[in-house]
């Protein structure tokens, strides 16, 4: 049978819930956080677009990527 939480664990859990709620209430509007996220996503997107526009030059592959086509009969 699973061990029941003890009084001390329940008290600590209650404390966690109250403290989290208090912190969340103190910082209700995470607009600054959302701005940071939007900027990070935009920056990453621009880097991807830049990488697509100027793909790095790779050395020629020693083996052909496609099998040579069979000669026409």
């Amino acid at each position: 049978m699973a061990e029941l939480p003890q009084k001390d664990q329940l008290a600590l859990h209650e404390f966690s819930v109250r403290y989290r709620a208090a912190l969340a209430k103190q910082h209700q509007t995470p607009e600054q956080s959302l701005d940071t996220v939007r900027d990070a996503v935009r920056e990453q997107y621009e880097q991807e677009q830049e990488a697509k526009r100027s793909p790095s030059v790779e050395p020629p592959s020693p083996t052909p990527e496609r099998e040579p086509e069979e000669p026409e009969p």
Partner: protein
Amino acid sequence: MDELIKLIRTYRLTAGLAERIRLAEEIFRLIEPDLRFFVFSSVTHHAAQDALQEVLKAVATGMKKFEGGTAKEFWAWCYRIARNKLNDYYRSKAADRMQPTPPEEMWQLIEASAQDAPISAAVRHDLEYAMKLLTSSKPECYDFLWRHFIIGLDYGDIAEERDMSYDGVRMKIGRCLDEAKSLVS
């Protein structure tokens, strides 16, 4: 499937910028409060806002590369990023490493947030008991108890963070709790 992991999967497959931003906003509305709590519990409050923005930026940038398939894996990945960012932060600003939040400060915060719905006597008794358990612990134990019971990290997360075994963490937390109880009673 968990709503969070659905959003992350969709985000990974989304190419357009506007849609990516919309999804990222939805994802971060769900995860920001927990990341905020983690950071604000690890760094002094005056430094925490900057540290939190660094963590959010790192998570947002790395989300395209996240390869896990469950919310639990995603949270473990987020906390790993947060720990690494906080370690970088500690190295550059050692003075901002968290000192245990003074009990009076925690109380003020809880009391202030409970103005609309006063705390009952029974709950107040529990909260005072929890505070005594935490504040009577030695610093090392305080940190283990805080991370497990208050932040909500499981034994595995703490084991990874501390480079300890799962059972080592489980036993350590058990011993710390017993010790705190004996000091309080």
